């Protein structure tokens, strides 16, 4: 497949088209997408996938710009997937994250793609996983995934990335109470942003809140330590600590196999999901075509048979077809 070669060569337009393909909601595209991804999986790259989530406006994009600038100066190649919410009402979206990634978006060693969430659950959009495989095959050292909100930490952390970091702003301590369990469990790194100017003392306080929160977390011996880091995206401070932490976690997790385990689990989950999707699609088609369903339900309404009988009959019927 020509597209595969182009992706591996790192051709920008080919990578972009491939991402469009894996994001497409068209049935034909899905098949092709699966083929493409299968081929790319045979040619894995070396990327580390890092998720950045956090409430709206905490500075996720600004942080990625700032951290990204730091990394490209050190000659790393960065793939960035930014997921922006689509409007609930119109389905359209304004993809504005790039207005905050001005410097890195100019750099030839970056590839930045915004994707509308299209109402998908958990803020992660259809195709994000596949897109990261494409960027991996294309030779990017890091793949950063930006999503809004903290609610989807679990989905993101367990299914998609090697390292999951939560970005918070100064003074988000209250929020902490409510979500403590989820985040302490799923986030590998807590980044307290906006540690600058008037906000400095508030930021340190927030950081210590998080530190004490994670101290409750029962750590099994072989996993890497969770870290709380203070940064200012605007002043570009604290960046070396972030990369150090990422690298430490990666090397520790690689040493004790956690890294591969996590990926293996994600892979199994993914296959399950794909299978579910395909079966669901097929069943839906069958259900639509099955006229006996409406007949049976009429019988239920007329009191001729019981509802559970109808359901069992229909299921049996669909399975045998």
């Amino acid at each position, binding site marked *: 497949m020509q597209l595969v070669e182009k992706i591996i060569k790192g051709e*920008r*337009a080919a*990578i*972009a*088209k491939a*991402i*469009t393909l894996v*994001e*497409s*909601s*068209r049935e034909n*595209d899905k098949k092709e997408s699966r083929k493409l991804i299968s081929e790319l999986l045979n040619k894995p790259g070396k990327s580390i996938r890092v998720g950045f989530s956090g409430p709206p406006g905490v500075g996720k994009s*600004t942080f990625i710009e700032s951290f990204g600038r730091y990394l490209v100066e050190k000659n790393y190649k960065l793939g960035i997937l930014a997921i922006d919410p*689509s*409007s609930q*009402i*119109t*389905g*359209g*979206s*304004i*993809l*504005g994250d*790039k*207005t*905050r990634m*001005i410097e890195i*978006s*100019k750099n030839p060693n970056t*590839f*930045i*793609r*915004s994707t*509308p969430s299209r109402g998908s659950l958990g803020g992660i959009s259809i195709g994000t996983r596949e897109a990261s495989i494409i960027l991996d095959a294309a030779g990017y050292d890091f793949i950063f995934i930006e999503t809004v909100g903290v609610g989807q930490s679990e989905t993101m952390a367990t299914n998609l990335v090697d390292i999951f970091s939560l970005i918070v702003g100064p003074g988000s301590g209250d929020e902490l109470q409510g979500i403590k369990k989820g985040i302490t469990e799923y986030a590998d790194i807590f980044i307290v942003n906006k540690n600058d100017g008037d906000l400095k003392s508030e930021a340190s306080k927030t950081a210590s809140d998080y530190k004490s929160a994670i101290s409750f977390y029962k750590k099994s011996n072989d996993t890497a330590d969770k870290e709380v880091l203070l940064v200012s995206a605007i002043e570009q401070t604290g960046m070396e600590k972030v990369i150090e932490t990422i690298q430490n976690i990666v090397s520790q997790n690689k040493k004790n196999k956690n890294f591969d385990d996590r990926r293996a689990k994600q892979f199994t989950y993914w296959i399950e999901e794909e299978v579910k999707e395909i079966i669901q699609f097929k069943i839906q088609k069958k259900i639509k075509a099955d006229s006996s369903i409406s007949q049976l339900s009429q019988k239920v309404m007329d009191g001729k048979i019981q509802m559970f009988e109808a359901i069992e009959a229909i299921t049996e019927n669909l399975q045998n077809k």
Partner: protein
Amino acid sequence: MKTKNIDNYTKWQKSFERETKIDLNEASSETDEGIEIKPVYTKADIENLSFVDNDSLPGQLPYTRGPKASMYTNRPWTIRQYAGFSTAEESNDFYKKNLKSGQKGLSVAFDLPTHRGYDSDDDLVMGDVGKAGVAIDTVEDMKILFNDIPLDQMSVSMTMNGAVLPVLSSFIVAGEEQNVNQNLLSGTIQNDILKEFMVRNTYIYPPDPSMKIVADIIEFTSKEMPKFNSISISGYHMQEAGADNVLELAYTLADGMEYVRAALSKGLDIDDFAPRLSFFFAIGTDFFMEIAKLRAARTLWYKIMKDFGAKNEKSLILRTHCQTSGVSLTEKDPYNNIIRTSYEALSAILGGTQSLHTNSFDEAIALPTDESARIARNTQLILQNETGVTNTVDPLAGSYFIESLTDELSKKAWEVIEEIESIGGMTKAVKAGVPKLKIEESATKKQAKVDSGSRVVVGVNKFKNPKEPKVDVRVIDNNRVRDDQIKKINDVKASRDQKAVDESLAKLVTAAKEGSNLLARSIDAIKNRATVGEVSKALEQVYGRHFATSLSVSGVYGKHFEGDEDFMNVTKKVNIFEKENGRRPRVLVVKMGQDGHDRGAKIVATSFADMGFDVDMGPLFQSPKDVAKDAIENDVHAIGVSTLAAGHKTLVPELMKSLKEIDPKSKIIVFVGGVIPEQDYNFLYKNNISAIFGPGSNIIESAEKVIDLISDKIHKNN
């Protein structure tokens, strides 16, 4: 009300309802500001006013009726036309001609590279040199600009904010080298950075150091330049960006308060600098509202300054320049603009402005020609000489409607000012981006009203001219201007004492680090022939360059069109498109070069998203290369270039080239919106531009055309 008045009113109401067949309670209209306008006003409406004092006279507090007792009966307002283009030589010529023909003061429009602190030889500004104003790189250019114009006699206003230090320094040094001491210079420097972050977009440094620079200039001029206005606190640009009159008035005065505080923090006494604060407002088409706005502005500023503890009467008085609204002027049937401008000018005068710029009828096409500029100037000469408006002061005082409107506007604006104060003042508000977003929301509403036809714009959405007239356009060859400028820069650099330049720039950097006054240091550097770009870059080393984060409104446009057929037709097409193509039509809206006009781009982006498009929004000041990379990585169907500052003939072909460089087979459609003279259409089409959307384009129609073009392209490729 007296019984007789009540009787009269009841009778009038009956007649009104009989004539109109409308219940009086339902007969009011509502302005953009949310102010109710009743069909009739009576004495009762001016009986319990909160801000206006009916007994005060012109020149008396709270100065509602005017800053001076005699106003135009003594001396008419100053005709001050804003102009500048191409090289200093050409602009100087133009100024001298205008002064001969009755203009009284000068007002310099600089080009965008100068505004943003880049020299003409900088690669970043290739398309922008001399295009939207005059290019000034060194003090030599500034000297040419005022050749044969004696700076001890001519008052000069300069719209400069971002690069205010090197430009004001060049002006001071040019004066000095004309043998005019700085204490004799009169005029105004705009020096209003807050509204740059909000709407005008020619900032350079982040908000905090920018505010320091403003304060430095107020400090320096209050000591050394007693005849010079240290700042022109501007609401003009807010209205032009889409603000209604309450927002314009409130944000301007709130900006003013922030500048007062900045100057006080320098240890100055308020009465040492407050008399030299001046203002600048836009005058749009809402005739009475605009009059009320100027009266309200003076009334509120008096209160504000009183609260600051000002004692000198001059500190309490708001003096203002006004400009008629450019955004009210249309590309279609452009001679209508002469009429619009006349009414707006009359508003400004009835409101009591101190000086005025009237726009030319070719406003929505290009910079004015000699001919269109002449008509614009004559609009004011006719008002001054033929209409008798100068013979009596504040002729509308006592009008039930005007007085009540003045008070109503004051109240509404005061609420907004208090809101801004409660979050800690304008610098904080601007950093959070709230005022900008409010203005964009207001702009989007206005657009929706015009596109839906609920607001009539003659010649645009109603009463169209079947035979559009052809008009002449001023053409500027930016490549020639750029070459000229580069040559002049090189000459200056070859003959200057480089060591002196380096030393004075180093001192400037030290001053920035130490926090001492920067204007004096900048004057030294400019005297030594450092360029505008070099001075700006030196400070950039310390302060960094500011990049704005832009927020977007959403749902405002769509809400106006609930159930609208044309609108739903487009959303339907979008949904079908999504089914067929597996994704929504995706459009990247961009601004390239130094053009900071973002009103149109922002409105189009939010409206398209409301119609179901996925819209990528690029940041300001992108290079064509950056845009191409963005477009290809996001695999957009189309790029919409919004261009208003005349860079299109350089930047658009560059973009086409960059797209092909990254992807020789790129199928991305490119279309262009904004201010494009018809003479350039063919040039753009030849460069493979698919469509052009000029000023006044209906956004729903534009969206339909865009989705059709995208669909066609996809079908052709399959």
